């Protein structure tokens, strides 16, 4: 059985990739993912805000209260050696992992400024990243900013990074574009080597007792594959860029669905966080077993087989399908 696939120009032994998560924080962990069978690993995201915050906080707390009081002109030992900030440690881990592993290691970056995107993308390339995933993760909360400007920002970031590095560049997106398909095409034209669909947006929760807004990131559920599944199926064959599916992969079945929709690779995080890195092997085994049982010979054989282009009823992905869903709903609960 031929499980190989090509993702943004990289030949992978199979389509299961460990996506950005805390499981890639150290070389050992990345090695474990490789050992568990990951075809590639996307490292956890490096956030430009975090780097800035860290730099500011370090300077602030080292200086705070110093040179104020005759007895205590400083509070911390002044060691004349470079600090390894998160970004330095990230790049070091990336560097070591890319040498220690046979599989491609991709860097993941979430920038804030154009300068930041370029600087850290270059550094990731220098550190040995086989590719870079741009996690464009911003919330268009500014009411004066039109959608076109938001879209342009995405494109600008992509072009800037593409210009700055030679390694392939993937764009991890949110689904909230007025015209996702059009955007995908624009990203394609701007040189994106892959689109990763979709990132899970920061959706805060409320703590009713404390009356506070609190971060609340939950593990994905298999149900969450629906949105990316639809868009991958819609985009398959319409753009040159590779497609990566992410979100909701908890068994081989979700992976198979994504592949059939047209994904070149399938990424998983929650399942690995819940079950450990070794679960990647289980997923792969499930995919293999299903393929064997259903007599598939290769991944390429099934890739896109259920995309909009290739299904019998292409309207199943569009409005007509919505009406069908409503009708079935009525049928089940109201008319019987």
């Amino acid at each position, binding site marked *: 059985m031929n499980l190989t696939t090509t993702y943004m120009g990289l030949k992978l032994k199979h389509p299961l990739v460990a996506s950005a998560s805390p499981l890639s924080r150290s070389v050992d962990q990345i090695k474990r993912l490789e050992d568990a069978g990951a075809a590639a690993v996307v490292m956890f995201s490096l956030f430009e805000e975090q780097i800035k915050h860290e730099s500011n906080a370090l300077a602030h707390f080292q200086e705070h209260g110093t040179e*104020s*009081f005759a007895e205590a*002109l400083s509070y911390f030992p002044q060691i004349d*050696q470079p600090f390894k900030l998160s970004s330095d440690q990230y790049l070091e881990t990336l560097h070591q992992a890319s040498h220690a592993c046979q599989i491609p290691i991709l860097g993941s970056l979430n920038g804030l400024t154009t300068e930041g995107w370029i600087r850290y993308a270059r550094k990731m390339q220098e550190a040995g990243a086989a590719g870079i995933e741009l996690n464009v993760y911003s919330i268009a909360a500014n009411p004066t900013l039109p959608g076109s400007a938001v879209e342009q920002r995405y494109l600008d970031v992509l072009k800037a990074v593409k210009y700055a590095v030679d390694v392939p560049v993937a764009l991890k997106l949110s689904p909230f574009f007025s015209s996702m398909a059009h955007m995908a095409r624009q990203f394609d034209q701007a040189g994106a080597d892959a689109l990763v669909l979709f990132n899970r947006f920061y959706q805060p929760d409320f703590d009713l007792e404390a009356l506070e807004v609190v971060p609340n990131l939950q593990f994905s559920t298999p149900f969450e594959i629906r949105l990316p599944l639809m868009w991958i199926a819609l985009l398959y064959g319409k753009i040159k860029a590779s497609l990566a599916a992410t979100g909701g992969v908890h068994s081989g079945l979700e992976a198979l669905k994504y592949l059939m929709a047209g994904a070149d690779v399938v990424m998983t995080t929650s399942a690995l966080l819940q079950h450990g890195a070794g679960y990647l092997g289980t997923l792969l085994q499930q995919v293999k077993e299903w393929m064997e049982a259903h007599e598939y010979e290769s991944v390429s054989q099934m890739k896109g087989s259920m995309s909009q282009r290739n299904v019998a009823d292409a309207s199943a992905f569009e409005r007509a399908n919505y009406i069908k869903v409503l009708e079935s709903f009525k049928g089940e609960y109201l008319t019987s």
Partner: protein
Amino acid sequence: MDKRKIAIVDGNEAAAHVAYRANEVCAIYPITPSSPMGELADQWAVERRTNLWNTVPQVVELQSEGGAAGAVHGSLQGGALTTTFTASQGLLLMIPNMYKIAGELTSTVFYVAARSLAAQALSIFGDHSDVMAVRSTGFALLCASCVQEAHDLALIAQAATLESRVPFIHFFDGFRTSHEINKIELLSDQDMRALISDELVWAHRARALNPDRPFVRGVAQNPDVYFQARESVNPYYERAPAVVQRAMDAFKKRTGRPYHLFDYFGDPQAERVLVLMGSGVEAAREAVEHLTERGEPVGVVQVHLYRPFSTEDFLKALPDTVKAVAVLDRTKEPGACGEPLYQDVVTVLSQAYSQGKRKTLPRIIGGRYGLSSKEFTPAMVKAALDELKKKRPKHPFTLGITDDVSHTSLAVDPDFRVSAPGVTQAVFFGLGADGTVGANKNSIKIIGEETDFYTQGYFVYDSKKSGSRTTSHLRFGPRPIRSTYLIQQASFVGCHQFNFLEKIDVLKVAAPGAVFLLNSPYGPEDVWDHLPGPVQEQILGKKLKFYVIDAYRMALENEMGTRINTMMQTCFFAISGVLPRQEAIEKIKGAIEKTYGKKGQEVVRKNFEAVDGTLANLFEVELPATTAGPALPSAVPPQAPEFVRNVTAMMMADRGDELPVSALPVDGTYPSGTTRWEKRNISQFVPIWEPDLCIQCGNCSFVCPHSCIRAKLYPEPALSGAPQGFKSAPLRGKGYPDQRYTLQVYVEDCTGCTLCVDVCPAKSKEVSGKKAINMGHKEPILAQERDSVQFFEALPQVERGRIDFSTVRGVQYLEPLFEFSGACAGCGETPYLKLVTQLFGDRMIVANATGCSSIYGGNLPTTPWSFNRQGRGPAWSNSLFEDNAEFGFGLRVSADKQLQQASELVEALREQIGADLAEEILSAPQRTEGQLIAQRERVTQLKEQLQALQDPRARHLLTLAGHLVRRSVWTVGGDGWAYDIGYGGLDHVLASGRDVNILVLDTEVYSNTGGQASKATPLGAVAKFAAAGKAVGKKDLALMAIAYGNVYVARVALGANPQQTLLALRQAEAYPGPSLIIAYSHCIMQGINMEHGLRQQELAVKSGCWPLFRYNPELKNVGQNPMELDSARPSVPLERYAYNELRYKMLTYTNPERAKQLLALAKADVEAKWAMYEYLARREAPAASAPPADGNHDAPLQEKTS
């Protein structure tokens, strides 16, 4: 001669540089102002820098200077070249070992940044009291007068001690030299190797204890031989001066810098000469040069080697023509016929005259100068030399003060100055928080390194830890700068805080035609109208060039908070022209890159932008011809007590130097509660109360570190006459109809720490971000709130008998008797102290260990320990750092004895005062507030009766009757005291069974001296002396105390469980034996966001780092387990707590692997500790232990903790 490296360093670094390289072991303990020497040694060892023998010295921290001296002694006897760094009381603690080390003729150099000794008060500043106190130990005393000498003589001392076998103290003046930054030529390793002979090092080793060739040393001797043995060392002391001079000569040969045991400067035919040592020599040289140029026959003898005192060399140095000598001592020896150096000079000259070595005996007078870094200027030198012209010159005399009591002081010509051609003198006034000092240190480096100019920087700090004012004195010039005194005429004055103009005379120091740079919220057009009149007058009168910049606005725009250093530094270079503008800007940027580069580019970028934007925001002000500004407000209000108006206010206005001797108390006694008169207004943002939202829980008031939030309940009619804007709400609480509640914020005393807002649980239903207390701009409400505070103060105080002491809600109505301290904004220690004073303050005596709490608690000009309306309040004192437990114990013993006497007298006078009253007084329980109030009333009644009695015993009893109300004795200090230096005493007091309450404010680090590790420092935290992260766990002081079985022990964290803290303090106080409360105190030194200090406390508890518990031995008497765990099992990962703090986080940046290892060890430690506490709390109740020595045995105080 070799070209040597130039360095811009302070005296401490200059000395440490040699000490580190010429030694194999450094045994250290922090004490100001010597701490940086030990810190540098530690830092270099961590950086793996090697010494002259290519090995990294061992740097070890001890638990006290006594311990350090012992370790030095041992290490020396073991054969290693060993040193230590210390000052003041630290040196005194070394005395016993110093006698031993000298007695055994052991080669070593102790480095001392000479400092005042605690007498009527502690002082951290410089004089020779400490070194003079050890002059009989047998150590040689070698004195440096400036930074270069601190460096050079260090090597000479190291060389001489090996050759002479006499141990050396190499000392220089604390702060004036130890902290002065100057441009020096650094000695190379070759220089040092040339002077330090390997053969002598080997000989030192060969003399060490060694089982391969054993001997005994340190025997006990008897009357038959001790004396002779003591005399046996004489030849070594006789030879030592020559050895030192040989080393000096060898030194000159290599470096070209000549030194002598006594150096003479001035007219070779001088008639009048000063003799002195230390930094004052430099000022004296300046004055003498100036005077000799004008034909005056004067000179100065500089003493380098004070012990052994070489008579011959002294006589050689002193011109034969001298007719009169004034000897200046920087120390005081009360009751002596003269200070030590004076006595030596008298002796030497008398001997020389009587032995015919001198034909004449000059007139010799002695004077004191410069105690506690008091300024010593060329004008004072001239005054002393002029005094020698008189027929009957004063002896003893004093310089630099006005002594209107003993009339010792000499008049000094205020206008006498020596010329300093080509020297730029600049003075900058800033706040600690605004980065002024750091920027100036930077400027000195830039100028010193990039130009041929010599540079000097000296920095003066005020006595507060929050909102502290700094003054920087910078000199640059073509010749080495010897001016060891503050700038008197500056050609550049920078005032980095606009409001200073109203508080101090900023322009007094401005020379005519000087440049004045002001950080001003007002632009060039309208700034003039906002200047006080006297400032306007000085600008016009001195024809100053006046520039303004709104640096705070720029800082805000650049997200730099309150750091305006970069902008102000750029302005200085732009205006002063010390360097070409563009070059200066490049250098500033270079310095920024150097400072911040390793911490990430973000901070570098911000600062670069600030530099680039500065010049566009710098404006010269066109001066009008007239002045119309308001007069300066007085420092304190007219209703302040006389002492505060006449004395305290002068110190507050930076005019303490002008106070005459008669103005000051003779025995160090000062009035309590003076901070209330110093409205510091250091925060632009203050809490604003929302009466409608407030649930009156008292949390904000409870946590306020500065006692700025106070609550009162009062009957509605009391509101009549309330000023407009006075806030009030109906009291929430059953049983209090028609009562009103006010939470008053003392906005002028608030430091803006925001802990109150953080802890407030009440939120608006409409706007969830709005609480019942929120930070807001102070300026718009300032006038109104001043009136409100005044009205609030006049409202009746709730009677203590009506207050529920057992709840946080109740405690808010208790008057704090510790208020408005100068502690850091958001201090984690002071809320505990405030609470203790609320609960027990009116009958409390405090023994306070030296440290942060003694400084914010007792540093002049104003002090926070206060008193209530009846005039009662905590009586506070500080003995030392090391003996605080014993000091508190003494206070207890004294109180107990006097109580006993009072009781005996009551018994004896039973019939005269009435048997019932006597019986009640003697048997009354005094545990609850109600019982105490009743006893107080009885004692008042007793006193009235005693007044009427003729019996002499009645008079006696009157002086003791106060003791019949139970005294609450508190021993307070930090972890440095309790865990380290004072532990022996603390342990003894715990074991004594006496009713002493010990409060340990545990910040887990030496806070006051700048963040050195203590035994309370937790595993994995980075601190000075533990730069690689502390590898062993925190000492469990609580568990050690529990082991006694009859000590009340509690571990508390006010931010995690205020109710438990409250209960523990009350139980501890009620417990009739020793009590130990270890209080988690978040601290600026932990590298945390102080706004969330209380949340960190909560995380410390939830992570298991700081389990809360109480061990109450009284419970054993009622068959219960004395150990009560007050916090739940750890529920938060340790890293979630630890990595909010730079002390832990830092290691993840410097050594991530080690950080991981230490975190794992720390987790294991937490788990093991928790298991132990859980075991103790779950086991069966142990048998009742022996009762405390002097306790009563009422039922234990038991309440819920939450």
